[in-house]
C-alpha cells in the first residue's frame, strides 16, 4: 500500500538561505515520516553520502528533498538517491518559493511544512519509471542541392556522417551555378562564381559519404522515435548516368528547341540537354514534356545510354535527421505590371542580367539588348516586391538586392564604361564591409538616385522611368534603353512543399521558421530537422554557407548526444485501442501517428499534456507516472495543513510558469504566504475534478498560469472557462478561479498577479463569510 511506504525527508539549510527564515527545528518536529535528516548544504558531495546512507539504513522507499527549486538541483538529487529510481524523489521548494519570498518566520515555517507535506503525499504516488533515451540514426538527408545543401552535406561527410542529397532538378548547383560573377566585400573585385563552386562540387562528388540523388523529391515523410522515413520519388532521366559520356552528340541531332530555364529562358536548348557545363551528374537528360520521341538521339548515342521509356520510382530513405536547404525563388514580375517586365524584352531582372553578363550565358557575356545593341543607359530599380506591403508584395527586405545591383553595375562599368548605370533606390543597405564596395561602385561612376519608381513605359525606342528624385523633391522622367529590376527573394515552391510534408513551422512569409530567432537560429520546431540557406530567409552565399556548416554541427550534436526524455508521456494500450485516429488529430504537438495499424506516439514530441487521454472513448491511453493521482495527492497534502483562518490559494504552473515564479524569489520580490505553487508537467493535466476537489476541500482560490506560446494555451483557456461555468452552475463563485498568462521574464508581473488575486480572494472570503 502506498500509505505504508517509508519516506525520508532531507532538509537543507542552504547555508542560512533557508534556515534563517524557516524554523527547521519546528519543521522537523512536525514531520511524521520514517526518517528526517538535515544538512547545511545538501547539494554538496557530502549530501550524496548522507542521502544514500539514510536510504540504505532506513530502507527508504521514497525521498523528499526540501531545499531549493527543482529547476536548480532536481538532476543532482535524482542522482543522489541512487540506487533508488530517480522519479521516486520529489523536491519541496522551500527556498525560491518560501524563504526568499516571505519574511514572517512563523508564516514561512508553516508554509514550508505545508509544501513538504504536499511533496510527501505526492511522492507516495510516484512510480519507478525510467527516462527514455532516444538514440537517433546517424544518417542525414539534406534536401536541396544548392550552395547551402552542398556545404552542409560536405561538412557532415567530412566528419564521417553518411549524407544523402536530394535534389529535384537534374543537377546540383542551385542558384549559385547561374549567378555569373560573385564578389566579396573585402576583395573589391568580382570573380567567377562557377570557379568557386566547382571545387566544392568536385569534393562533394568524390566524397564516399555522400550520395547525390537528382530528379528526386521527397513526397512523404513520417517520424518514428527519432527516425525519419522519407519516401522519395525519382523521376526518370531517360539517360543512364553510368553510360553517358556527356559527349553531346545526342543534343546535336535533336530537333526540338525550347527556352533554356537555366539561362532564365533567354536562350534555347534542346529537348535532350545538359543543364550547364559543369552540371552533376555529368550526363544529359531528356525533358520528356517537350520530347517528340523521334528517336534520333537514341540512334546517335554510341554508348546506348538513352532509354526513352521510364517511370517514376519510389524509394525509402531512413535517416535520423534532416537538413532543409530548399532555397528561394524570385518574385513573380506579373505582380508588378507597371514595370513592364512582361511587355518589354529589355526590362529584365538582376538574375537575367547575371546570365547575360555571364560568359556561359546566352550572349557569352556581352551586355546586349534584344536588338543586339549595347545599352546606352541601364536603370536599375530596387526593392521590387520587397519592402512592400501591398497585395502580393513582401514586407521584408530581401537583403541581397542592394549588393547584387552594385555588383552588376560594376560588371557593366568594367566592360562598358560608356554605358550609364543609374540605380534608383530607397535605402542602400551595405552593412559592415559591404559599404566599401558601395564606395568602390560610386568611384566607378555608377550613379544613384534616391526614389522608388512608379512605372516604366515605352516611348519610341526608349523606356521612360517615372520616379521622384526625393533628394531634390522633383518628379523626373528618365530615359533608358534597359531597365533591370531587383526582384524580391521568396521561399521556393520546394520550400513550401517540404514544410508541409515535414510539418515544420513557417513564417508568415512562408520561409522555414527557426525554433528561436535569437538563440536557436538553425533548429526548426521539429526535433531533428534543421534549416539553412535561403529556405530560412533571404541571405547571401556567405551567410548560406555559414548556416549550412552550423546546421552540420547541430546534426552532429544531435547524433552524438542522443536525447534523454522525461518518461511522463502517453502510452497506448493496443488491446483497447480501435485505431479510430481521434487522438492523432487531437494532438497539438503532432506526436501521434498511425503506423502499421497501430497508434504510435513519438516520445520526442509528446509533452504528456493528456489531451489524447481525455478524448479517448476506449480509455486506451494512459500517461506514465500516475500524474492524476500525484496532482490530487499534492492538493490534499497542501490542504491538510490548512489552519483556522488561513487563506490557501493553489497555483498550478508548468515548467515555464514555475521558472517565472522561481524568478520572483531569485529577485527577492515577495507575494502572500497564501500562494502555494504546484508544478505540473503540463497545465492541461490539471483536470476539472482537481479544481473542484480543491475548492470543495478548503482551497480559497485556484490560479492557473500558462505560457501563451504553448500550443495548448487556447485549449486550456477554454477548459478553465468551462470549469468556471460549471462551478457557477453549482452555486459556487467562479471568481475563485483565475487563468493567467505567464512569461519567464515577466516575473514581477506574476508577483503582482499573485498579490491581486490574493486580495480578491480575501474580499470574496469577507463577503461570503
Amino acid at each position, binding site marked *: 500500500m502506498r500509505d505504508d511506504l517509508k519516506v525520508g525527508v532531507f532538509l537543507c539549510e542552504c547555508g542560512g538561505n533557508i534556515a534563517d527564515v524557516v524554523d527547521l527545528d519546528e519543521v522537523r518536529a512536525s514531520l511524521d515520516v520514517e526518517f528526517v535528516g538535515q544538512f547545511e548544504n545538501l547539494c554538496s558531495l557530502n549530501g550524496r553520502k548522507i542521502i544514500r546512507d539514510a536510504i540504505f539504513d532506513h530502507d527508504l522507499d521514497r525521498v523528499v528533498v526540501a531545499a531549493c527549486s527543482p529547476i536548480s538541483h532536481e538532476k543532482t538529487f535524482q542522482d543522489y538517491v541512487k540506487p533508488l529510481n530517480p522519479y521516486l524523489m520529489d523536491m519541496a521548494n522551500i527556498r525560491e518559493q518560501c524563504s526568499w519570498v516571505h519574511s514572517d518566520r512563523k508564516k514561512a515555517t508553516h508554509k514550508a511544512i505545508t509544501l513538504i507535506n504536499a511533496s510527501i503525499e505526492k511522492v507516495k504516488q510516484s512510480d519507478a519509471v525510467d527516462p527514455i533515451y532516444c538514440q537517433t540514426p546517424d544518417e542525414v538527408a539534406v534536401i536541396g542541392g544548392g550552395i547551402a545543401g552542398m556545404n552542409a552535406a560536405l561538412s557532415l561527410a567530412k566528419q564521417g556522417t553518411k549524407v544523402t542529397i536530394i535534389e529535384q532538378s537534374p543537377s546540383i548547383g542551385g542558384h549559385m551555378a547561374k549567378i555569373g560573377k560573385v564578389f566579396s566585400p573585402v576583395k573589391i573585385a568580382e570573380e567567377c562564381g562557377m570557379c568557386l563552386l566547382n571545387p566544392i562540387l568536385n569534393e562533394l562528388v568524390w566524397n564516399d559519404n555522400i550520395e547525390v540523388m537528382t530528379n528526386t523529391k521527397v513526397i512523404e515523410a513520417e517520424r518514428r522515435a527519432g527516425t525519419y522515413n522519407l519516401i522519395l520519388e525519382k523521376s526518370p532521366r531517360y539517360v543512364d548516368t553510368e553510360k553517358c559520356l556527356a559527349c553531346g552528340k545526342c543534343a546535336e541531332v535533336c530537333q526540338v528547341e525550347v527556352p533554356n530555364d537555366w539561362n532564365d529562358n533567354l536562350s534555347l536548348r534542346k529537348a535532350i540537354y545538359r543543364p550547364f557545363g559543369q552540371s552533376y551528374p555529368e550526363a544529359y537528360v531528356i525533358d520528356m514534356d517537350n520530347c517528340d520521341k523521334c528517336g534520333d538521339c537514341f540512334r546517335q548515342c554510341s554508348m546506348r545510354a538513352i532509354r526513352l521509356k521510364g517511370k517514376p520510382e519510389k524509394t525509402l530513405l531512413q535517416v535520423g535527421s534532416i537538413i532543409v536547404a530548399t532555397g528561394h525563388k524570385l518574385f513573380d514580375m506579373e505582380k508588378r505590371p507597371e514595370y513592364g517586365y512582361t511587355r518589354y524584352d529589355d526590362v529584365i531582372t538582376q538574375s537575367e542580367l547575371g546570365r547575360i553578363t555571364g560568359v556561359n550565358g546566352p550572349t557569352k557575356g556581352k551586355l546586349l539588348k534584344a536588338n543586339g545593341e549595347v545599352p546606352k543607359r541601364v536603370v536599375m530599380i530596387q526593392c521590387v516586391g520587397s*519592402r512592400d506591403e501591398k497585395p502580393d508584395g513582401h514586407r521584408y527586405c530581401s537583403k541581397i538586392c542592394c549588393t547584387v545591383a552594385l555588383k552588376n553595375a560594376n560588371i557593366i562599368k568594367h566592360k562598358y564604361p560608356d554605358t550609364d548605370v543609374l540605380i534608383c533606390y*530607397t535605402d542602400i543597405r551595405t552593412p559592415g564591409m559591404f559599404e566599401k564596395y558601395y564606395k568602390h561602385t560610386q568611384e566607378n561612376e555608377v550613379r544613384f538616385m534616391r*526614389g522608388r519608381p512608379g*512605372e516604366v513605359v515605352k516611348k519610341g525606342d526608349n523606356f521612360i522611368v517615372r520616379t*521622384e528624385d*526625393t533628394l531634390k*523633391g522633383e*518628379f523626373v522622367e528618365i530615359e533608358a534603353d534597359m531597365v533591370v529590376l531587383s526582384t524580391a527573394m521568396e521561399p521556393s515552391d520546394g520550400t513550401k512543399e517540404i514544410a508541409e510534408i515535414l510539418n515544420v513551422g513557417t513564417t508568415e512569409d512562408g520561409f522555414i521558421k527557426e525554433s528561436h530567432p535569437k538563440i536557436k537560429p538553425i533548429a526548426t520546431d521539429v526535433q531533428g530537422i534543421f534549416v539553412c540557406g535561403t529556405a530560412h530567409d533571404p541571405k547571401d552565399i556567405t551567410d548560406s554557407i555559414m548556416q549550412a556548416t552550423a546546421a552540420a554541427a547541430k546534426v552532429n550534436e544531435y547524433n552524438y548526444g542522443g536525447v534523454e526524455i522525461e518518461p511522463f508521456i502517453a502510452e497506448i494500450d493496443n488491446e483497447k485501442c480501435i485505431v479510430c485516429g481521434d487522438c492523432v488529430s487531437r494532438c497539438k504537438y503532432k506526436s501521434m501517428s498511425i503506423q502499421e495499424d497501430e497508434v504510435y506516439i513519438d516520445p520526442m514530441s509528446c509533452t504528456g499534456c493528456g489531451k489524447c487521454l481525455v478524448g479517448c472513448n476506449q480509455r486506451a491511453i494512459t500517461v506514465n507516472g500516475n500524474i492524476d493521482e500525484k496532482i490530487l495527492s499534492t492538493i490534499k497534502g497542501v490542504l491538510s495543513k490548512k489552519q483556522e483562518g488561513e487563506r490557501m490559494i493553489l497555483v498550478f504552473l508548468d515548467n515555464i510558469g514555475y521558472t517565472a515564479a522561481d524568478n520572483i524569489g531569485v529577485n527577492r520580490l515577495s507575494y502572500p504566504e497564501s500562494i502555494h505553487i504546484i508544478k505540473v508537467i503540463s497545465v492541461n493535466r490539471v483536470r476539472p475534478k482537481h479544481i473542484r476537489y480543491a475548492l470543495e476541500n478548503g482551497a480559497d482560490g485556484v490560479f492557473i498560469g500558462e505560457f501563451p506560446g504553448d500550443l495548448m494555451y487556447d485549449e486550456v483557456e477554454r477548459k478553465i472557462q468551462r470549469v468556471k461555468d460549471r462551478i457557477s452552475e453549482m452555486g459556487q463563485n467562479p471568481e475563485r478561479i483565475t487563468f493567467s498568462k505567464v512569461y519567464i521574464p515577466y516575473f514581477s508581473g506574476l508577483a503582482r498577479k499573485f498579490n491581486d488575486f490574493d486580495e480578491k480572494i480575501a474580499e470574496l472570503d469577507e463577503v461570503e463569510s
Partner: protein
Amino acid sequence: MQKITDSPIDFAEDIIHDVKNSKEEGVLKCVQCGMCTSTCPAARHSDYNPRDIIERVLEGDITILEDDCIWNCFYCYTCHSVCPVGNSVCEVNQILKQFAIKNGIGYEKLYEYMGFADSYFTAAIGAIPEIFFADIDRDVPGWWDFRQHLDEIRNELELDPPLMPPKDVIDEVSTILTITGFKKKIENIREAQEGEK
C-alpha cells in the same frame, strides 16, 4: 531649432486618430521612398508633392494647413493604392483639409461649392453647383441645350423615378445634416466669406 519640449509627432498622431484614417499607423511608417510622387498626377503637373506632405506632417509642420498646394490633390488614390508601407497620402490630405477648415482656413476654397451643399440640404440632390454653369457652357458646346432637353431624353429612355426626391426624404436629409453640424458649418463659411465681400 527643435526645442526639447517640442513634440513633432503629435501632428501625425492627430491624423492617425482622425475618423477618416483607414491606414492605422501608416503615416508613421513612411520612409520617404517617393513612390507616391512617382505616380501622382498633381506632382507631375504642379508643385504638389505627396512625399513632401508626409515629411512635413512628420516634422510637425502645421503651416502645411495654410499651404495652397494641398488643394491640388486629385483624390485619385493612386498613392494610396501603391504605397509600399501602407500609408495613404490621399487620405492624409483629406484629413489635413478638414483640420484646415476647422481652423478657419480655406473657406474661400469651399465657397464655390456652397451650391452643392444647398441643393443637398434643401432638395436632397447632389448637383454640380450652378456657379460653374457658365464655364461649362463656354467649354462644352451644346451642353446647355442638352440640359434643357434632359427630361425629354430621360422620357425617351423610360427612366423613373423622377429626379426630385419626395418631401419626407428631403426633411430627413436636412435633419441629418443639421444634427451632424453640417448646416452650422456651411452657415459659418458663408458668413465669413460674404462678410469679407
